[in-house]
């Protein structure tokens, strides 16, 4: 049933396709009754799968669409503009992160086995990078994988693992040599979750939701063929994976933040604050920041799509967006005034790095959810402090 998509007219085609599928007056997932979201997302994933819009840039032999990364990005943009998700909540781990990394580093057998299963939703993936004592300092992680005949034995603990409670597999960055130097001697190991040696304990976040988990490995085993890339090259493989995540996020984030900003404007209008000179200045400041960062993001994207190396600007993107979004959430809460003391309506759900679902209400609960979660924006994936270190050291050449 999967239809053919052409690169030359992809944006128009997919935009029309999405528009045709969406219900009349579609406002976004955030406008659905909370209880209907899961069902909609499941059904929508099926629709995308049927239309051949999952794994768009993957080779057709693995079930993908055979187009390029450029169309993949266009698809992500168009889905974001249309206020629909690109798959199930756990799909990004498999589709945006592991999939492209498998294509780059995987053996033929690994690709043939894993890629179609990701697209068909048979394997859900989660990520095992951070550890309790290695938050911003991945170089110091201590989970170990030891080879013994046909198997690797994994021991250690990972933390901040999203979707671990529903995942079938986890990709683990583990130490596989005694060499203690920070980034060497690590391997990228794929481990099945359904075994006695793997235990998942959910972490309740400050919002009360359970999105992250701790994952404990106690003599967990995985077949020796489940190392991705050469043994000892785990750090490089992990960096590949993170760069795929970043380029995807860089493309869709501005769109989501624009939609969120429009919700903020609606809040100002509903509360009748638009004539307040202070509020006007704050809103204009937020818009300026949003607009500037969107330009910065487009410059990075254009450089990449021209085939050039991402310039020194690319390192800034995550740092800048996370602080923008943290500030925006605070502004929204300030505009709510005393209403922010009370959670009215649904509380915005946890969506790392991003805004509440498009179409979300402008009642206090949604913004409170955004406020609570935005505190993680400057922590997850490297704190702002670490990001600044990296900018100063790697881009500007300041001494460590």
């Amino acid at each position, binding site marked *: 049933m999967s239809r053919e998509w052409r690169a030359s007219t992809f944006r128009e085609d997919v935009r029309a396709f999405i528009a045709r599928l969406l219900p009349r007056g579609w406002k976004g997932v955030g406008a659905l009754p909370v209880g209907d979201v899961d069902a909609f997302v499941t059904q929508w994933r099926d629709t995308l799968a049927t239309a051949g819009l999952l794994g768009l840039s993957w080779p057709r032999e693995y079930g993908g669409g055979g187009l390029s990364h450029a169309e993949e990005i266009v698809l992500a943009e168009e889905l974001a503009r249309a206020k629909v998700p690109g798959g199930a909540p756990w799909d990004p781990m498999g589709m945006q992160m592991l999939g492209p990394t498998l294509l780059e580093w995987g053996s033929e057998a690994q690709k043939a086995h894993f890629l179609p299963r990701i697209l068909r939703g048979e394997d859900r993936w989660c990520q095992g990078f*951070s550890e309790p*004592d*290695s*938050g*911003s*300092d991945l170089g*110091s992680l201590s989970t170990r994988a030891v080879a013994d005949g046909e198997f690797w034995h994994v021991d250690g603990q990972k*933390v*901040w693992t999203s979707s671990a409670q529903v995942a079938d597999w986890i990709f683990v960055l583990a130490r596989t040599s005694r060499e203690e130097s920070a980034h060497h001697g690590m391997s990228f190991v794929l481990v099945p979750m359904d075994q006695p040696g793997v235990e998942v304990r959910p*972490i*309740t*976040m*400050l*919002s*009360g939701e359970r999105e992250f988990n701790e994952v404990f490995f106690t003599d967990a085993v995985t077949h020796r063929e489940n190392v991705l890339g050469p043994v000892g090259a785990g750090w490089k493989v992990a960096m590949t994976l993170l760069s795929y995540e970043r380029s995807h996020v860089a493309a869709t984030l501005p769109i989501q933040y624009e939609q969120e900003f429009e919700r903020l404007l609606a809040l100002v209008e509903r509360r009748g604050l638009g004539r307040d000179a*202070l509020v006007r200045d704050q809103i204009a400041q937020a818009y300026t920041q949003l607009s500037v960062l969107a330009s910065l993001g487009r410059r990075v994207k254009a450089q990449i799509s021209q085939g050039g190396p991402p310039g020194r600007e690319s390192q800034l993107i995550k740092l800048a967006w996370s602080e923008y979004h943290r500030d925006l959430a605070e502004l929204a*809460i*300030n505009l*709510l*005034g*005393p*209403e*922010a*003391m*009370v*959670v*009215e309506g649904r509380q915005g759900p946890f969506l790392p790095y991003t805004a509440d679902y498009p179409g979300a209400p402008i009642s206090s609960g949604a913004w*409170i959810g955004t*406020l*609570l979660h935005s*505190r*993680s924006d*400057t*922590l*997850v994936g490297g*704190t*702002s*402090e670490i990001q*600044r270190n990296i900018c100063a050291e790697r881009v500007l050449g300041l001494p460590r």
Partner: protein
Amino acid sequence: MTMTDDQVLSQEHRVFQQTMRRFFDKAVPESYVRDFYEGEAGFDPAMWRRLDAEFGLPGLAVPEEFGGSGAGLIELVLVMEEMGRCLLPSPFLGSAGLATSVLLRLGDTEVNTCLVPRLVSSGDFAALAVTVSSGDWSEDAVSVRAEGGGDDTFRLSGTVRFVLDGDLAPLLLVAARTTSGISLFEVEPDARGLDRQRARSLDPTRRLATVVMHDVDGRLVGHEGTAWPAIRRGLDDAALLLAAEQVGAAERCMDLSVEYARTRHQFGRPIGSFQAIKHKCADMLLRVESARSAVYAAAFALDQANPQASRAVDVAAAYSGDAFSWVAKEMIQVHGGIGFTWEHPAHWYFRRATSSAALFGSATARRRRIAAALGMPC
């Protein structure tokens, strides 16, 4: 712009402070607060009785002739700092801080001899309903209407949101507008036409309610049409006490951050040895001590009936609210991932800070008053 004279805590103040610190350290451990997050409990009558029985706190600032201890605002400030430190969930702010203060400031003998003593050593506490739906604590914003007969009984209609402990308080006071102005009324908790609903607070340790009245009987408290000055001054008192609570809470955030920064290692060093963390902690200290200085200065000014006391309260409230919000946020940043969990108390303080920033009026609203007080044309 005259500065007040040197004011500093006395030795007695320091002893009192230490007594309170010791009591709350023991009586309100983290697990106590956690129960308010995990369970359905929202008020602990036993704790309220202890505050009274052991220290007479509900009547601390009530003159001795009306059954209280006759202390000043500075003593209440010291209590609030400690309550803020441990995030005690309590009707203290709404009842002893706001309602009692308004009643006393009415300066009405009958009120002082009949109503006020009810709030001292009785186990009772009061809620004052004075905001409107927009949450503006100004005279214009009083929207409850009271229609009166010949005697002291009026019929009240309207909705008041964000009432501290408004769903529970045995003594419910309502500010309403009669033909002659703002007046204060007592409403029976079980009166016909009265609906009191607990709100879902961002900060579960701060109990808030919406009070809806349809032709509810209200008994006039004090004189008709003359309540606003007392309410205004009571709101100043309460705003100052809230600021004190913020100082205590902010200091605890700083202590938690410093402790974590000393013990958590990354890159082979305690994170507190990194300048980024170090400087954040130094800025916390600057804000905490600055806020505390402003709060003490305003308390002494109020206790001495300094004519510029109200402006000093605005300064203390505007500064402390911003300071606590900043410190609570940076505490999460210093703690990294662990500060982002439900289990860690960091978010309790963040919620308290966010919620408190909007109680009794925002920092922006306080600055509007300051600008006017500086004589800038409006």
